Structure formats: C-alpha cells, structure tokens
C-alpha cells in the first residue's frame, strides 16, 4: 500500500540522502519535500502525509518545535526527528513531542526500523 512521506530539511543534500534511503525501501511511495517549517506545515494541511521526517537543525522553527506542531495539527502522522546530535536531552524532547528520533546520517536500516513501527496509527491524543 502506497504511503505519503514528507521530508523536511533546509539542506537539499540531506533531503537527497533521505530520499535515497526511502527509495531503497519503498520506491513507490509518494514523497513531498519542504525546506522549512512554514512550507512543511502547508504541505501537511494539503496532503495529510502518513509519515514526516524532520531535520532538527533548521533556522527559524527547529525540528523539535515543528514536531510538536505537527502532532497537534495532524495526530495521525507519524513523525520522526532526524539529528546528528544524539544527546539524551534531544532524544527525550523528541519522545516528549510524540516523535521518534533517528540519527543522522540516516541509513536505510534505521529508516526501516522506524517504518516497522508505523502501521498502527498512534491513538494517544495530546
């Protein structure tokens, strides 16, 4: 079953890397890209993606704040924050926002593990 994936990162190079990982697992899925939080939220409004992969380190609204916003606006979307910064604090903040944490650079394996947890929409309401 095909799904919609939103990829948010201000670096096009980083988005290319995520897409490459995604392609190796699910080349048939639809992807959307955004380079900042504003564009991302717009896409969420329009497309209601199943999955959102957010970079943490972005100017303006960072990935963690965006994750919280997304969980509010679109609770059915599965959100993961991607960051090279593995500090416990960041990981916890991600969890607190209802998002998974994925380390950067993103590998196909890490992505696959995350996607395994996706089929059941989380029913917890914030």
């Amino acid at each position, binding site marked *: 079953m095909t799904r919609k994936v939103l990829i948010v990162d*201000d*670096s*096009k*190079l*980083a988005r*290319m*890397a995520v897409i490459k990982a995604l392609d190796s697992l699910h080349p048939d899925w639809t992807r959307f890209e955004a*380079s*900042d939080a504003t564009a991302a939220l717009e896409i969420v409004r329009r497309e209601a993606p199943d999955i959102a992969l957010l970079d943490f*380190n972005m*100017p303006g609204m960072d990935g963690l704040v965006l994750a919280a916003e997304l969980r509010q606006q679109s609770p059915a979307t599965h959100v993961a924050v991607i960051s*090279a*910064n593995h500090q416990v604090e960041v990981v916890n903040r991600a969890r607190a926002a209802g998002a998974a944490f994925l380390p*950067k*650079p993103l590998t196909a394996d890490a992505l696959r593990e995350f996607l395994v947890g996706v089929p059941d929409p989380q029913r917890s309401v914030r």
Partner: protein
Amino acid sequence: MNDFLQQFLLESRELAEQATAALLSLERAPHDAEQLGTVFRAMHTLKGGAGIVDFFAMERAVHAAEDLLTAARAGRRTMDATAVGDCLACVDQVLQWLDTLEETGELPGGAEQDADGIVARFERDTGEDASPSASVPPDPSADGDSAGVSAGSYASDRLPARARDVLAAQIALVHGASGGSHGHLLSAAVTAANLLRAFDRAADADELDRIAAMRRADNMRPTLHAVLLRLLEDQPEAPAAAVAGENLPGVRGETTSRTLRVDAERIDALVRLTGEITIATNGLAHLAKVAYTDGNPMAAVLKDRHAAFAHLTADLQRSVLGLRVLPLRVVFQRFPRLLREMSAQLDKPVELKFAGEETEADKAIVEMLFEPLLHVLRNALDHGVERAPVRAGRRKPRTATIEMRASREGDQVLIEVADDGGGVDTARIRRVAAERGLADADSLEAMTEAEVTALVFAPGFSTATEVTTLSGRGVGMDAVRAAVERVGGRVSIHSEPGLGTTVRFLLPFSVMMTTVMSVEAGGQMFGVPLDTVVETIRVPQHRLGVVGAVRAVVVRDQTIPVFDLAQLLGEPPPREHPGDATIVIAAFAGQRCGLGVDALGERLDIILKPLDGLLAGTPGIAGTTLLGDGRVLLVLDIAELLQ
C-alpha cells in the same frame, strides 16, 4: 561528478560563506548569540553534508570547530580572536577541499592529513574561560576601556568591562541551553536593569523594567536579547544598512518560492540563442529591402513584420541579459576577509563599509571587478591610509574607514572605493614619474595636481613586478584601467590631500559577449562574428572562377560568390596572391558568400562595444572590442557589408 557531490559542492560553498560572514561579525561582537547560532548551524550542516558524501576527513575537521562553537554557545568559551581564527582556518580548509573537488571531480586525497592539522589546531587552543561572574558589584569609578573588542570608533561613554561581562552573562542566560524560561528572562532583565541604574543609565534601565513586566516568555525573549545586545555594543537603535561585513546577507536566499536557482551555463546558452535570433531577424531586414527594390507588393508588409520582430528581439535580448545580472554584493563580500589579513599584516586597523551592495550589474562585470577592486583596496591600505601616529596627529580615528559604494546611474553602474586616508601623494608620483622617465622635468612642473594623479595609470608606473591575470602586463593601475576599459568602462582617481582618496569606476550595466574569428585583410585585423561563419577554406587561385561580374568558387556543388574583404572595406584592390586563397564562408539570410582574406587568426571571446558618436553610422562595422594587448579590433557586420 554525481548528483550528490554536485549538490554537496554547491551547498557547502554557500554554508562556508555564511559561516565566514558570521565569524567576521563575531570578531567585532563576540557575544552576538544570533551570529554564533548561525555559525554553529552552518558548521553543523557542513559536517552533515560531508557525512552524506562520505568525506570523513572534512567531517572530522568541521566537528572540531563545531565542538568549539558548542562550548561557546554554552558560555564555556568566548569567541576571542584565537577561536575565530581557528574557525576561519577550518572554513578555509573546507574551501580548499571544495576547490579540489570541483577541479578533479573527486574528493581530495591527502585530506586526512589536512584534517589532522585542523584538529590539532583546535586542541592546542582549548583554553576554556571561566564563565563571567554574575555577581560583580558595579564599580562606577572604573573608566571605560575598550574591553579587548577589536578597535572601533565608539563613543567614550561605554560601560566598563566588568559591567559588560555581566550583561554578557545575562545574554547567555536568555539563550541558555535550557531554552530561557520566563524565570530566567525575568532574572536577566532585572539584573541588567539594576546594573544600568548603577551607571546612571536610567532610560535604558526603565526599558529593561518594562521588558521585565512582560507576561509571555516568547515575546520577552527576542526583545530582551535585542536590547541587551544593543547595550553591550553601545550601538544606536536602528542599525545602519551599511555596516561593515557583518550584515551582508548570505548568498543563500531560497527561502521563498519566488526565486529559482539556475545554472549559469543555461543562461549563457540562452544568450547565445538570443544572439542567433537577432541575426535571423536581421535577415528579415535584408529580405524586406530586396522586396522593396524589386517592387514586390509584399515589401511594405515585410517591412512592418521586420520592425515588429526587431522590437521583440531587442526586448528579448534585454530580458535575457537581465537574467545574467548579479548584485555587486557577490564580489564585495569577498573582501572583508582579505582586508582583515592585509590590515593585520600592515598593522593598520581598518573598517570596510559597504553601501548599495544590492545594485546589480552583468555577471561578466561583477566577476571581472574582483582583481581591480582588490588592487585598489591594497593601494588604499598601502599608500592611502596613514600610519597610526600620522593619523593621530591629524586627529583622525585610529581605525581607518574604507567604503565601497555602488549605485546605478542611468544605464551605467558607478562603483567607488573611498578611504579616509591622506589622499594621493602627488610629490611621490612626480618623483617616480621622473625616475621612470615617464615625463620630463618641465612637463611635470607644468602639470596640475589632477594631471599628476592621473599618471598612476601610465604603463610602467607601477613599482611591482609580479604578473597577474589582470592583463598579463603586471599589477598596477594601468592594468586596472585596461581591464575596466576592456568591458567598456572608465576608471578615475579623485584625491583630497589629507582627507582621502576615491577611486571611481563607471561601468556599463550589461555587456554583450560574442565569439569572433579574427582575420587579416589589407594589412589590418578584423573580427568576424563566429555565428556567421560556416566554414573556412583554402583553395588554389585557379579554382576561383568568374561568374558575371563577380568571382566565385564552387564548394560541394554550390556556387558561392567571393568578395575580397579588404576591397569591401574600401581598401585598394589587392595584388594577385601568389599562393592559395583563404576564404571565409559566411552565411546570412539563408545565403552564403565567401570573404577573401589574407590570413586567418584565432577565435576570441570578446565584449562588443557598439559604435557610438561619430562612427555610429559606419556601414559594415558592428562595433569594436579591446584586445588583451591593448589593440582595438573592428568587428564586422557581415550582412550590412554585403548589401
């Protein structure tokens, strides 16, 4: 190079520029949390990018810088000159790697060793400062000093160093790792207010009290941050638009969808295509003329159609050339870094200011300006800006100011480099000119100050002997003038003794670049636009027959009339050439004809200056161009010539 490496190259360059601009800004204002955040994010993304393309050496090197910046953000280190220098060195190394990547198409080998060097540098310089104490009692009797910030021309009623440390600590609190809760913000605002009150800065203290009264943290945070920063730097409320290097916006501006990034080559292809369309339109003109001469009833209609086409083509050409414009900021922003080094070498503190950096000009002009401007900057620093004791004696600020200004004047662009130094030393110029035999003693005597100043443009004036890419003739204002004139511009120097010097460049807004083939005819060189050239042949004289009143040659079963170029241009008819005839076969308006020339030269990319003034109506000449060796080449309009 694969897609990933291409994108990596593109993005990394932009990030490196962002980081550099922010670092230079931090050098002058080490506690600017926003700039610190910018550098940090840039380096973090650079590191990420390196990881994506498996450039491990770069990952390591940038990681070392990132660690330093993390410590700085947490308040464990100050961004002092060493820290900034180390980070800049890291960015430099990255840029070098990127250059190698671009040249070779592959990640640079030997990068691991370079990375080792960078990492070692950061390790050597880890001096973690003690965090500034937040409980220092203000000491009103301490006099204001410059607190180790790089020299600037600030007013003398600055807060003393310890007070500034306290303010800096409050800023750190506002932007702390815990995100600055309301409690933190309140504490910071109140502390700062008390501090300022102790220094009789009642108005500022009141402002902080008002901020402290704000209810919502997210309103309070940016306001408090801005006010604390302003107080720390003692700057007036509204930042001037023309502040040195620190606020040049990054080249990376794709936050809105109204801009597109386009490959420069595509634009050049479009420009060439537009040129061809222009030629095709000219062919219509010819057709219309022929129809008129033949009394063809279609003549009038054709003439109108051609006129319509000509308008559209001209508009198209203007629009397309307009795509190639860049803001002058692109070349200006290369200088703060270089100036910093020159200033340190010569021990002459100087501040570089910009104005009008968003003014646009053709890409060719903007790119060509780098070396001339660099040379002018060097001169300003070497000769213009006086040494400290002299400046002090003249009651000038310790830090000299050089301003680079750009503005649009009609269809030209004006760029000025103005310094507040001592002006041009005409006595020295007279001496050097005499020494180098550029003028005899009597003429020098008779010259006005302005005329003497203009002597710096004379070839042979410059004292340096290195050869640069400017013109192959060496550095010096003569090379600058040659480069500027080659694009159709003018440069002049204006000096006010004791007050300063301004070098003024007037350049055309857009340029037309074309490729020509140079040919020799009648003992002179001419340029034939390459778009009109189909082929060139050499044939033995006996193959040139006569058809009616005209000579002709048969090429691949086609009879092509041949005209002697020198004769077409009004030169006397040639003697019979002993050897083979060299013929350039040109096409226009669907027809072909041959031009007999004496010899063929090379292909040249030139900037065409249309004829103006007295020569404007000369038939057969499209314009002129200045060759690298200073000669003028006449470029032909083949269609006109053959009518």
